[in-house]
């Protein structure tokens, strides 16, 4: 295993401490329990947005704590849901009296831990689940689809609405609207190595890739021969459009998301390919984000996300944001 780390057991603590120091103008960090919250929290009478999940997806979620997005983030062990005590401690730091919205990616562990936190929390709270991964066919099982990169979009849009003072129920409804309007799918060219495990989660041949991969180094649905960026973009765009069925000309947000080990050069190239694939369906992105936002450690690969925007969602996307990983208008 080749990583810039010290002892395997200290990876999260040291990384989180570094994050806290680097962004001390924006956030405070507690190492036990592990939480990251806005320096200015709580914001009186604003619904507090709390997300969290296994680590290894950076900048998700800690990198999105700040004005216009999250109030707090709870980082779990690598690829392991955080625990209810973290969520409760976070809620105590940031609940400004208007309640807490938990933003949860749809994995059994995340769902159950947030559920238990919500049951134990004495304040008012509600939750919204993301399950944008169209690679997962829902027919065969009752787990539902995975939540992946659309979580970033949801945190941005719902975060902006919270900032303008929307109440808990409206934010939950908006979150569901964003999630329903979004679809994602990913591809991995390499696996990734969980520090504690010390070896890659899966092996993939030099001429192969994993189509429909998630963000935990878990194998995808299909092992296929390495394909061109155009072929990948067409398959993914096709699968998402089949799910979202946008009308021709509909405004779309496109997120080209790197998995951590793929350089920007390739991400912009994939975005170019995705634009061509969309154009074949008489569609074009009206908002664009390209970069590493919801990663899978050092995995090489990328995912595409499309989100059908309406006017309100567009305005909320454009609203000012100031976090470690996303910043505009401020």
């Amino acid at each position, binding site marked *: 295993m080749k990583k810039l780390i010290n002892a395997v057991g200290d990876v999260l603590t040291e990384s989180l401490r570094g994050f806290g120091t680097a962004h001390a103008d924006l956030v405070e960090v507690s190492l036990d*329990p592990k939480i990251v919250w806005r320096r200015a929290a709580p914001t009186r009478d604003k619904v507090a947005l709390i997300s969290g999940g*296994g680590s290894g997806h950076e900048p998700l979620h800690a990198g999105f704590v700040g004005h216009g997005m999250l109030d707090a983030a709870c980082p*779990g*062990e*690598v*690829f*392991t*849901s*955080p*625990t*209810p*005590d*973290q969520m409760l401690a976070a809620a105590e730091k940031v609940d400004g009296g208007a309640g807490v919205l938990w933003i949860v990616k749809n*994995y*059994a*562990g995340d769902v*159950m*831990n947030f*559920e*238990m936190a919500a049951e134990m929390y004495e304040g008012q709270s509600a939750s919204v689940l993301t399950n944008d991964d169209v690679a*997962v*066919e829902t027919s*065969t*099982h*009752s*787990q539902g689809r*995975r939540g992946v990169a659309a979580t970033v979009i949801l945190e941005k849009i719902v975060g902006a609405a919270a900032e303008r003072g929307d109440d808990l129920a409206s934010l939950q409804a908006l979150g569901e609207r964003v999630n329903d309007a979004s679809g994602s799918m990913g591809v991995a060219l390499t696996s990734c190595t*969980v520090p*504690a*495990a010390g*070896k890659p*989660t*899966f092996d993939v041949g030099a001429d192969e890739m994993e189509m429909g991969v*998630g963000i*935990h*180094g*878990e*194998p995808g*649905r299909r092992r296929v021969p390495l394909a061109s960026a155009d072929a990948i973009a067409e398959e993914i765009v096709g699968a998402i459009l089949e799910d979202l069925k946008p009308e021709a000309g509909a405004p779309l947000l496109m997120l080209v998301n790197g998995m951590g080990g793929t350089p920007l050069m390739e991400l912009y190239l994939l975005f170019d390919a995705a634009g061509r694939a969309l154009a074949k369906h008489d569609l074009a992105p009206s908002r664009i984000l390209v970069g590493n936002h919801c990663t899978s450690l050092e995995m090489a690969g990328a995912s595409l996300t499309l989100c059908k925007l309406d006017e309100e969602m567009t305005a909320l996307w454009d609203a000012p944001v100031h976090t470690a990983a996303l910043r505009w208008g401020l």
Partner: protein
Amino acid sequence: MSMDLLRRAAHAAHDAIRANEDRIEGLDRAIGDGDHYHNVIRGAEVAAKLADELGDAAPDQAPDQALKQIGMKLLSTIGGASGPLMSSFFLAAAKTPGAGAVWDRATVTAMVRDGVAAIQARGKAKQGDKTMLDTLIPVAEALEAGAGDDPAALAAKVQAAAEAGMQSTKDILATKGRAAFLGERAIGHIDPGAMSCCVIVTAICQTVASGETL
């Protein structure tokens, strides 16, 4: 006596999980996300440590209190899917005996039954979904069925039930947990949670069989 059993069971589980690192770890890398061994060993470690502390501090403490404390500790330690599930087992089992009850065979059987039911309630999975429940439901049933057996015979039956349950996850699709995302590709692999639970159950059975008078 019960506190002491709890303590030895916790250590037996801890040792057994560690001894089976490669098998458990490999399974979650194959059909999960590679963290299950690390989650469970983290839990086993704090459980063994906490059992020691509680045992040292108050050897005659009612074990339901200890179970509750262990359950809360697991909840804030394991994380992932297995954290809330394993924790729920302990939190529910702690409530079974009623304050101060003696842990006889019937009580333990009821505790396991309630613990397993709590896992089902939390995770909404059923037998055959390719989860830890495929190990644990047969274990609970074997305990009830073997009510009249002597300890060694019962332990052997429970162990066999765990083993068979764990093996039953190998050739089926997963419909709960991360492996569900894999569809057909999960076939041929034992579920990691089913494996770790089998390892723990087996270790505890061996603790009991080796002289414990339950």
